[in-house]
């Protein structure tokens, strides 16, 4: 380990590296939280390959791809907002953060339409339509709802966090020489993006 890590950091002193380290560790827990569900997914996919294939056809690939693009773009604007604050371009940074929020909301709206389309076809947990399907398909949709739902909750939390960051930027609490909170929010947002990067092919592209 490098020597500067063992430097004693005063209690009142800021330790940006430490904050980021804590954030990364937290992200690992998020990663493994979803990791547990990916474990489930992989076993059931292995046990019911044909049913999963069949069920995945029900999902709208175009919609999923479009949403992936939206989320990737929001990741870009988030990353750019940090560059902006580093360069002391406060207004630009706030603007980029707001674009990120907008894209995230857009993602959720899309998701809402997707879910309600499924619901209107009678495919929702416990519905007769779903229960009449094969075990593999029930499990596929169970996982679909739980995983995208939990991901959606993470998007919601992300929106809230970014909104707080925008406010803090406006109030001058996040500045070009003190922006670790914005950075950590960014880290969180990118992780939400990474999880979607895996959810997308596993649910939409296995046809």
């Amino acid at each position, binding site marked *: 380990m490098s020597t500067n890590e063992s430097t004693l950091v005063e209690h009142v002193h800021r330790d940006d590296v430490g904050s980021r380290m804590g954030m*990364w560790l937290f992200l690992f827990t998020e990663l493994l939280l979803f*990791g547990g569900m990916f474990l489930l997914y992989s076993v059931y*996919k292995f046990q019911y390959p044909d049913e999963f294939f069949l069920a995945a056809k029900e999902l709208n690939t175009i919609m999923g791809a479009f949403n992936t693009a939206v989320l990737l773009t929001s990741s870009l604007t988030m990353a750019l907002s940090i*560059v902006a604050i580093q360069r002391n371009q406060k207004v630009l940074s706030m603007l980029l953060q707001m674009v990120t929020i907008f894209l995230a909301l857009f993602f959720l709206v899309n998701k809402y339409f997707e879910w309600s389309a499924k619901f209107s076809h009678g495919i929702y947990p416990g519905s007769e339509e779903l229960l009449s399907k094969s075990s593999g398909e029930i499990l596929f949709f169970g996982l679909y709802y739980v995983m995208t739902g939990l991901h959606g909750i993470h998007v919601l939390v992300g929106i809230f966090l970014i909104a707080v960051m925008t406010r803090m930027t406006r109030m001058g609490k996040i500045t070009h020489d003190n922006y670790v909170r914005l950075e950590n929010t960014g880290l969180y947002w990118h992780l939400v993006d*990474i999880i979607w990067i895996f959810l997308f*092919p*596993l649910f*939409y592209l296995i*046809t």
Partner: protein
Amino acid sequence: MEKHDYYHEHSHSYGIYILVWLALMALTAITVAVAGMDIGKFTVATALIIASFKAYLVLTIFMHLRSETKTFLIFVIVALLFLGISFVLLFSDYSFQ
């Protein structure tokens, strides 16, 4: 730690992020296109390889892993290894049933 070096440690230019974004969009397009083709059992594998590459780009560039100290890199490897081993061991049961 030098007193001021913490707020310049990962200044990228705007350009690199936009480049990475373009790459991510392109990869998304590719993965959708590949899924449309009929390549049998390689469908999932290809999709996952492309997804991993996308995740790698996000991790290193968007999440600045490239410019963090080595400790962070080791951390990420440990976490991924833990998850990876869980997969391998779980399938030591399931794939032989």
